[in-house]
């Protein structure tokens, strides 16, 4: 049973995912860009898998092309989970 992605739950899972792929925990916030966190496209693929495992939300194709910040991902996951 997948958990519905509340903004808080999405933020928690995505933050943990970012740490898992090597981002500096102290630098993670909604406005932080992936570039500033040194998170690359393969890291984002892994975070998409984490999100899918947790919330059953698929982040594929055009969805992920325009994501620039941590907040962008959180908002997208919450929107797709609604």
């Amino acid at each position: 049973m997948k958990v519905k992605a509340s903004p808080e739950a999405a933020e928690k899972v995505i933050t943990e995912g970012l740490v898992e792929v090597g981002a500096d925990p102290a630098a993670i916030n909604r406005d932080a860009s992936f570039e500033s966190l040194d998170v690359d496209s393969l890291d984002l693929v892994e975070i998409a898998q984490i999100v899918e495992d947790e919330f059953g939300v698929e982040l594929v194709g055009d969805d992920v092309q325009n994501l620039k910040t941590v907040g962008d991902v959180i908002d997208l996951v919450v929107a797709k989970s609604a």
Partner: protein
Amino acid sequence: MSRLEAAAGTVTPAPAAEAAPMAVPGPGPQRTGGALVTGASAGIGAAIARRLAAAGWPVGVHFRNGAEGAAATVAEIEAGGGRAVALGADLDEPDAADRLLTELEAEFGPVLVLVNNAGRRADDLAPRIGDDRWDSVIETNLSAPFRLTRRALGPMLRARFGRIVNIASIVGPQANPGQANYAASKAGLIGMTRTVAAEVARRGITVNAVAPGFVETSLTADIATEPFLERIPARRAGTPDEIAACVDFLVSEGAAYVTGTTLTVDGGLTA
């Protein structure tokens, strides 16, 4: 140490760098997961499934039409103390890859080993290959492996471990009149292998191809063997188990630094 001293063997060798602990066959205690071998009801696929099971992997034995063969492969693995499950699917269907992986994940956890073995031939000279025979060969031999690879990579990325082995062919890199569709599919599979390997190498995932030459299976049963055998330096066809042994190596811990390559197994035919 001078080269002279080294040649004379008069210098005590420096202590070897600390060796990694002996790899545990199969997923090992630190990993929970299984292997999927497509087209494993007979021939090369069945031999690969048996090998991986013997190495400790729980194996999904995929079949399309060969339910009896897949059941026999599963029974053989279980009789040897291994774990296996038969899974039927037409991989040409776009959603089959997801369904197959989801079923296997429910049995064994994440699929950490994927062997894209299922393939087909529909031979003719290029002017006589219609769209249907072109499309069906590309679909089975190239598009289906891509869909399985795409679906399998997410869990492999999370596990920081994965092994993908694509069964290609010496046909593709090398011409074989009458197989334009097959050659294109297998050359494409090798190209896909190399690029995906480069994409995911830093996550402990390897992606390689094995290119068999002439192997005695049901896929080659209609081919007259004599003219082929005369051209093979080893003067014989390969066996499914000889292909499976190479896959076994590429899946092993010992092959962790081997990725993006194609291992040709052809008795010297393309040497």
